[in-house]
């Protein structure tokens, strides 16, 4: 008898895969770019401009980010709707993590909608109206301006914490759902590593956001001395 896949099976596997590649991969690149703001507005704007100058940018944006994100988030909401949460009766840590994964997922759906409209398109009424896309020279100024509003900054703090959790625990879930890590002991080690990664990603995300509020973010400024420019900067307007 030959193997027959159901629609659910294929969609679940695709959901698990899109969370890691491309979305997980993209988040690391995104976080790295944000973190360059630690070295000052000029460096950050240059990195944004480098992204704008990428080959196949539109294709990468559509097929590498928007479509996977749309699929992962909408199918994720459907999966979240299946859950019959019971942490009050069965308060085991993994059961809580199962709940967190769904709560962070639902929160991220709303957060990312806000985030993309706010910065990529500049379309949230009352907030920033200049899209970062196409305005690399103003990128730092736009973000720093938004982060002067305390509740916007708070939303972004929550956003990076939720992303840190969802992605790091997502790595764990991917490893067990694809039968890569099976045994109890191996899973315990991987889980600890994932929780560590969640903390690391959250701290790095908050620090990157703080870099738009104060130079060098939460770190002492001596760590972020801007590199000496030997030749005059010519690439920038």
């Amino acid at each position, binding site marked *: 008898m030959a193997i027959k896949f159901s629609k659910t099976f294929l969609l679940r596997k695709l959901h698990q895969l899109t969370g890691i590649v491309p979305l997980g991969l993209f988040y690391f690149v995104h976080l790295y770019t944000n973190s360059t703001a630690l070295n000052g507005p000029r460096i950050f704007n240059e990195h944004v401009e480098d992204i704008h100058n990428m080959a196949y940018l539109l294709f990468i944006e559509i097929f590498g980010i928007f479509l996977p994100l749309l699929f992962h988030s909408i199918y994720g909401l459907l999966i979240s709707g299946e859950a019959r949460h019971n942490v009050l*009766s069965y308060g085991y840590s993994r059961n809580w993590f199962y709940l967190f994964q769904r709560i962070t997922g639902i929160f991220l759906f709303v957060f990312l909608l806000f985030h993309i409209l706010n910065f990529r398109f500049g379309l949230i009424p009352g907030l920033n109206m200049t899209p970062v896309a196409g305005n690399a020279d103003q990128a730092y100024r736009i973000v720093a301006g938004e982060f002067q509003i305390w509740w916007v900054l708070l939303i972004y703090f929550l956003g990076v914490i939720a992303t840190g959790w969802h992605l790091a625990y997502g790595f764990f879930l991917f490893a067990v759902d694809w039968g890569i890590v099976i045994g109890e002991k191996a899973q315990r080690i991987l889980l600890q590593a994932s929780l560590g990664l969640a903390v690391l990603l959250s701290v790095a995300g908050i620090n990157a956001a703080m870099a738009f509020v104060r130079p060098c973010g939460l770190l002492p400024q001596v760590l972020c001395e801007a590199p000496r420019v030997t030749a005059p900067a010519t690439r920038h307007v």
Partner: protein
Amino acid sequence: MNPGNAKHEKKRLENPPAKFKLRIQRRQNEGAEVYWETFELPYRRNLNVISALMEIRKDPVTADGKTTTPPVWDMSCLEQVCGICTMVIDGKVRQSCSALIDDLLIDSGSDTVTLQPMSKFPNVRDLKVDRSRMFDHLKQVNAWIELDGSYNLGPGPQLSNDTAQERYAYSRCMTCGCCLEACPQYHEDNYIGPQAIAQARLMNMHPVGKMEMEDRLNGLLGEDGITNCGNAQNCIQVCPMSIPLTRAIYDTNRDITINALFGWLKK
């Protein structure tokens, strides 16, 4: 008492109350309205939930003095090996034969024990549920080994000790339904659940059963298949037989990744 079995050490109430209450979720028949009745019983040493229910059955009068029908529940072995007396006791699923009143009163710190039928199965009446869907799941995953042929197949190949030990653990399943009740992904036909996956694994680990592994994997690749596992891992926590249910799921995940998802690479 066996010192290695400290987890199951019996607790004793220091100052037992003269009376305690049983609060029971009731229903006359499938689909009928749910209602609650509370019964008051004199406390006795070593009572378990079933002996308390048997006391009520002798004289079914509620705490308010109303005469009612005796509560209905299932029971058989009375030593936690048949699984039929499974119900939700103080919010947690377990066998009522091994649920001691002393333990329950100490854990809850109250004078009341609450009994409910399992919520994930059709409720026939009071505490009795219809668990035949678990048998349907076993059929769905071909949880047996084809032996009948036109000639004698002879003795099967020998198993390593490790494999035999692991298979023995899976074979302890008594189809009680605790894992399904506690699973947040299991309800109606959403997910086949750990019970059937573990039995498929038991048969897939057998050298002869391995020959029909694809049939069993197909039973787990449907709309209600193994990918609907959400990894809350409640199943392994509540299993009264300590079956490594999550291991069965993850080992089967590997079988599926290798043989089903990437099976075409071998073609």
